[in-house]
């Protein structure tokens, strides 16, 4: 039987001190090692859902299991640890800490979470990622001198380091042109082929569906 990486049922969420229900999901299942296209146009609770899955927002109602752990039952710091150790996160833009160089940026997750590093030689893994993502020649540059395409690749490397079980990519290509988007997708998916993490790729751009086997549409599952 294939285990669920993420399992959500009967989730209801509204922000503290407000009445408006932002999110109401009856059921959402993502299996381990799956790559999912999560279609999420703005205004359908996309950010809220991602913040909940990452364990940043606290949920009172429903079940949200991430890697078998039910988030509403965990403390804030346990959720922070779960995220730090198991989830790689790629933002839409400005993923990098400006005062660190490329390698330091990539190594940040294992510096913050010793457990994420496990037994692997993460410095070596960082070097490998830098070369597979075609960043070798920029390795010593300031990250602020990189193009946006290059920055997103560094962000991908950072999400991949320490082999997290889940990678959430929040519109990572929305500020890239077509050529850079294609390149980015190829690199990301090539890594997925090797490492078989659970990939949740969030975008409003339906053209990117073609890279994925399965699509979940947020407007359909969010029944507020």
């Amino acid at each position, binding site marked *: 039987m294939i285990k669920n990486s993420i399992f959500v049922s009967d989730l209801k969420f509204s922000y503290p001190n407000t009445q408006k229900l932002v999110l109401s999901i009856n059921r959402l299942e993502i299996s381990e090692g799956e790559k999912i296209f999560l279609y999420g146009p703005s205004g359908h609770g996309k*950010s809220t859902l*991602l*913040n909940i899955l*990452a364990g*940043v*927002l606290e949920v009172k109602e429903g079940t949200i299991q991430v890697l078998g752990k039910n988030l509403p039952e965990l403390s*804030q*710091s346990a959720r*922070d*640890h779960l*995220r*730090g*150790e198991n989830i790689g*996160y790629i*933002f839409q833009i*400005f*993923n*990098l*800490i*400006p*005062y*660190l160089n490329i390698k*330091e940026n990539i190594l*940040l*997750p294992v*510096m*913050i*979470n010793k457990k*994420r590093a496990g037994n692997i030689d993460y410095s070596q893994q960082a070097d490998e990622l830098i070369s597979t993502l075609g960043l070798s020649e920029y390795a010593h540059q300031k990250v602020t001198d990189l193009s946006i395409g290059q920055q997103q690749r560094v962000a991908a490397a*950072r999400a991949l380091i320490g082999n997290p079980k889940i990678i959430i990519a*929040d519109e990572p290509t929305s500020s890239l042109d077509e050529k850079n988007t294609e390149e980015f997708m190829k690199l990301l998916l090539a890594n997925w082929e090797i490492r078989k993490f659970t990939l949740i790729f969030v975008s409003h751009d339906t053209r990117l569906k073609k890279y994925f086997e399965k699509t979940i549409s947020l407007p359909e599952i969010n029944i507020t």
Partner: protein
Amino acid sequence: MINFLTYRSINNRKFTSFLCIASIALSVTLFLAIERIRNGAREGFTNTISQTDLIVGAKGGSLQLLLYTVFHIGGAVNNIRMTTFDEIKNNHLVDWAIPISLGDTYKGFRVVATDENFYEHYRFRGDKKVEMSEGSRPSDTFDVVLGSEVAKKYQLKIGDPILLSHGLSSEAILSHENTPFKIKGIIASTQTPIDTGVYINLYGMEAMHFGWESGVPDGAKINPERFKKENIKITQITSFMVKLKSRIAVLKMRREIDQYEKEPIMAIIPALSLQEMWQTIGYVEQILFLVSLCVLLVGVLSILISLYTSINERRREMAILRSLGASSRHIFALLLYESSFLVIVGCITGVAALYGALIFVRPWLESNFSVYLETQPLSKTEWFYLLGIFCAGTLAGIIPAIKAYMNSLQDGLTIKF
């Protein structure tokens, strides 16, 4: 991890961090320096004379007695009889007594007539005694010993003859022409009023006034035989300093002196009087202290300003750290770390600058203002001050830290553009 991020983040904002550290360092230096000068000035002042239990002189103002006996300022209303001095000196409670006789000057510098006891027993700044840098103590009637500043100012050497002037005015016109004195020694610098004194013995004082009974010289030639010590009778002095065998007797002795029936005399306790006097002139030091506190406040505020203004532009950075598993508390700690790092570096730089400054400024302060500064290691109080500054600076960092904490709770992983 936090160390590393703090260091890199501060390094990233080099210029503002530098300004911040510089302003803290400057205020720390200023604060500690003012503290030291304050203490140095007070110590220097209140230790102008030590170990002397009582100063005795003619009845009058107690401040006046202190001023003319110790600081060579102003004059006495009356002299006291030598017999009074002898009687008190021989009291069984008295350990030693130093007579002082005033009334003449040398080019504006006070002439102080005293005896061997002055060189033997006078103490200042704790246990320092009067030492000769050149020559020896006066022994003959017309021997004179100079304070270091007097010797320096007039480039005087051992063996030089000098003429003393009658009266305390710096424009004294009547000089003791018939009785030139010969320089016998020069007193090593003490950074006290001793340096501006001209010291002779009581016989010399008496001898140069022979024939001056009417207030001006009568012009009569004086038989040199009269200048021999055994032929000179000392009849009066101006005041004297007393050390008792036991401190416990000070108040009793003082009362006895104040009630002395044969002559109207009074006694003061120099340590107390100096303390009192410092309190009246010492308000300046309190103003200095307040000013240095304000400077310190500005230094601490600079941390607050520098960190607080950086918070908004670092919102993205905080969200990134959050996404990587950092908790809101991590974010809080990161900023607190930054502020404490800035204060620590500021304090260290400030202390280093203080010692640098001390080495350069000290000789100048000592010779020009009699402010006595020792290049001693940080005192307990100063460590306490530094700790206080550190706490204040770190506390100032709490405000931006709270702001960043709130931001990170509110933003989560969603970064607003």
